[in-house]
């Protein structure tokens, strides 16, 4: 499964439309020239041929460079790699296509859009052709997979790769073909629906959610059911949309954003299918595959705490406003990455909704302080609200795991984003909301009085305090039985249950702690900006948080802190900006996307893991596995 599937289609579609206008191929590789001029007068036919070639090449490159090396890797590594790919493609589109940022772009559609009368209503021609095309493609694919030797071989390889190898089938060649075909289908689909659904770096990428919903309904193997489900989901969504904007539908409360309702359809489908198919414990035959990076017991905690707190405190007092801002951003983001460490690094689950939890807490805290709840109490209450939502969102985790859980949480994150965070009375809608000045024991700890140029150290110290307490709490959890139980569940759910661990409770507990931390992040975000906008909490931000944490080291608190430093507009980028004269932010997503893919493939322990093993190599070697016994005795 590939999260970046729609993103791949998106790049192909952008490349297609750009080629049709200019005859240029926009090269999706950083460091190479941005575009190559291919044809002086592109036609529709040559543009389509171009799109197919680009899609095939993209599919093959992605398979061979990213997913083939990860065939035996844990599900999380594949999730992370596909997130990396998604981020990278999004950034490429944002950086290299001039039209991507513009609000209104008219693109020449491929299909005619004349209105046609049908069953007493009018439909545009392109919709009918599209629907027919989809059915034809499904029939052809179904026939190929059912009646040809290729199809038989592919199904055999999917069922049992080793058995297929013994029969002389090359799973590699089959997979390459499937990747190429899937990539072409995604590209063509995005090109054709452009007049209906539009084309943008963010929304098109998320089309993967309804697509996954349909594919899950088809059990990931039936073309017929998947096609029917896809068409049905699309129709129900359109019906809901058409229906919710009609002036006579009064029963829908005002606070529900009308565009949000249709997002619930794929969410409900995904949850329904996953819960229906899922199991509380994986069965005896389930292959666990490779493990997540080991989680070393925290060492030298006091020394690290004193050193880091001292360093940041000195920095807050002495550095200029720009760096102070970067420090604050990094500390706030570190709370989010800490939440990823607890959930993914310790308990082995994955959530792509962390920033949605943060958003709920952020706006809730603003509401609370507006009603004269003191800042520290609002901080805790709002984070507790995030905890409650986190446990709700984590509930499917008790029945599904790995990639399925990632999909479920992604779908729910989008639902929270569309239904709650976009809700006008809650968040102020597009305008956002502004937090009142926070006071701590009567001291003004507001971030600044005169806009973004003035980041006060007082707020920085609040962030430092919260982050220190949160980090120490997580370190303690890791050292105590709670953390051991999470690691046990992460390692082996069946054995954990046999050892008397309530796996459901352990998982939900991890979700609770994790979403509380995300809530703290959201509240501090709310107080660190002049105006908090719902767009600060887009799903893509959760993906970045998971990605950066994985990159920095997902199974240790140190990893979370490093990830915080790497945050966009954090201290790392501030430093790089100083060095490079302002370019670092431009490429931060694209490069972190690439770094993510490379990390997922080559160094599952991340940056902190690399540093640790380098440190272990430098120290004089001792007899009898020094690394392990040190970790446990220290």
């Amino acid at each position, binding site marked *: 499964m590939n999260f970046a599937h729609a993103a791949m289609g998106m790049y192909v579609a952008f490349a297609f439309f750009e080629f049709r206008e200019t005859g240029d191929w926009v090269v999706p590789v950083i460091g190479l020239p941005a575009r190559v001029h291919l044809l002086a007068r592109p036609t529709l036919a040559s543009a389509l041929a171009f799109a197919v070639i680009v899609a095939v090449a993209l599919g093959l490159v992605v398979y061979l460079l990213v997913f083939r090396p990860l065939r035996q890797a844990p599900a999380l590594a594949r999730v992370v790699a596909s997130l990396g790919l998604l981020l990278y493609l999004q950034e490429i589109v944002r950086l290299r296509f001039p039209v991507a940022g513009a609000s209104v772009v008219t693109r020449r559609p491929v299909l005619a859009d004349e209105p046609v009368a049908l069953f007493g209503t009018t439909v545009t021609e392109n919709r009918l052709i599209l629907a027919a095309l989809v059915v034809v493609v499904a029939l052809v694919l179904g026939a190929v997979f059912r009646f040809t030797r290729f199809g038989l071989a592919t199904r055999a390889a999917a069922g049992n790769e080793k058995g297929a190898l013994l029969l002389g089938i090359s799973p590699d060649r089959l997979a390459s073909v499937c990747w190429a075909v899937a990539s072409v289908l995604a590209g063509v689909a995005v090109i054709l629906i452009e007049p209906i659904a539009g084309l943008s770096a963010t929304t098109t990428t998320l089309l993967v959610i309804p697509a996954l919903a349909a594919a899950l309904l088809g059990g990931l193997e039936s073309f017929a059911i998947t096609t029917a489900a896809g068409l049905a989901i699309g129709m129900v969504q359109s019906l809901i949309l058409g229906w919710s904007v009609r002036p006579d539908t009064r029963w829908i409360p005002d606070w529900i954003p009308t565009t949000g309702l249709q997002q619930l359809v794929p969410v409900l489908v995904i949850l329904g299918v996953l819960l229906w198919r899922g199991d*509380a*414990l994986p069965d*005896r035959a389930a292959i666990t595959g490779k*493990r997540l990076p*080991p*989680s070393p017991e925290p060492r030298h*905690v006091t020394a690290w705490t004193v050193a880091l707190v001292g360093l940041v405190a000195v920095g807050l007092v002495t550095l200029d406003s720009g760096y102070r801002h970067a420090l604050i951003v990094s500390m706030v983001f570190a709370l989010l990455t800490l939440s990823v460490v607890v959930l993914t690094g310790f308990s082995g689950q994955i959530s792509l909704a962390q920033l949605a939890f943060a958003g709920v807490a952020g706006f809730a805290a603003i509401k609370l302080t507006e009603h004269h709840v003191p800042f520290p109490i609002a901080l805790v209450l709002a984070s507790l609200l995030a905890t409650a939502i986190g446990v709700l969102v984590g509930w499917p985790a008790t029945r599904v795991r790995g990639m399925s859980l990632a999909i479920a949480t992604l779908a729910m994150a989008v639902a929270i984003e569309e239904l709650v965070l976009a809700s006008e009375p809650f968040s102020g809608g597009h305008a956002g909301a502004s937090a009142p000045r926070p006071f701590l024991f009567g001291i003004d700890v507001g971030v600044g009085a005169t806009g973004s140029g003035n980041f006060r150290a007082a707020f920085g110290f609040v962030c430092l305090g919260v982050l220190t307490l949160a980090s120490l*709490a*997580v*370190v*303690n*959890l890791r*050292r*105590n*039985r*709670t*953390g*051991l*139980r999470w*690691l*046990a569940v*992460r*390692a*082996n759910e*069946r*054995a*954990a*249950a*046999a*050892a*008397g*661990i*309530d*796996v459901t*409770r352990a998982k939900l*507990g991890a979700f609770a*702690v994790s979403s509380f931390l995300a809530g703290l992040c959201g509240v501090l975000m709310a107080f660190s900006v002049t105006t908090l906008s719902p767009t600060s909490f887009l799903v893509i931000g959760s993906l970045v948080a998971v990605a950066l944490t994985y990159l920095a080291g997902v199974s240790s608190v140190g990893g979370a802190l490093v990830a915080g430093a790497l945050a966009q507009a954090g201290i790392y980028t501030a430093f790089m900006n100083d060095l490079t004269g302002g370019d670092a932010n431009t490429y931060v997503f694209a490069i972190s996307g690439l770094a993510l893919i490379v990390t997922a493939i080559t160094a599952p322990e991340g940056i902190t893991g690399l540093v640790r093993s380098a440190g272990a190599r430098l120290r004089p070697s001792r007899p009898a*596995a020094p690394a*392990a*016994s040190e*970790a*446990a*005795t220290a």
Partner: protein
Amino acid sequence: MSLLEVSDLTVKHGGLVALDEVSFAVEAGSIVGLIGPNGAGKTTFIDAITGFTPAHRGRVSFAGADITGAAPHARSRAGLVRTFQSLELFDDLSVQDNLLVAAHTPTLWSTLTDALWPKSHDSSETRRVLDLLDLGDVADRLPTELSNGQRHVVALARALVSSPQLVLLDEPAAGLDPAETAALADLLRRLPATGTTVLVVDHDMALIMGVCDVVHVLDFGRLVATGTPAEVRNDPTVIAAYLGTEASS
């Protein structure tokens, strides 16, 4: 009243009947053997009793309480603990931590104190079991660094650390050398005196016949014989189950 009472236990995997109306009891303080050819349903039996496989029909009661529908972790906490044929150790945790997670039942309060205090657990219970099974020297090692024999002992230690009333051992002697098997037999004989009843599944007949008070024989999901080791050894049905009947041989 017996410690474990199983009546008419039936388990189906799809259309295949893996266990067919199996009934038997385990008396407290005994060592009970369960044997049978490969595929007879021995592991399914342990899975069903410990809640890892749902039973289609039948009843399991333990220490007087009906536990037929209870969750695996609840049965484990009630004192009905199992091991796995494939050991299933927590490979990320040290030997001592493997035991520590199994030793205690968490509460909301313990989670809070875990967050507030650097080290809030005491490890006296794990120490006791580590010493009992002679694992003290490797307590801080990872399971992946141990020999196969030691890994088997760790799996056993993890099962025993919560002082269960009944422990179900799934092929504890698989892959052990004769000396290790003899040590295992010694240990099993000592367990009833510490309050732990034993049900052991294994293919090592010397072990089963040497330590068990009662032996049950499964074949194609049905209980075909029950008796003392001597009785079972000479039972014609058992010989037929293992070697095939005369007609088919």
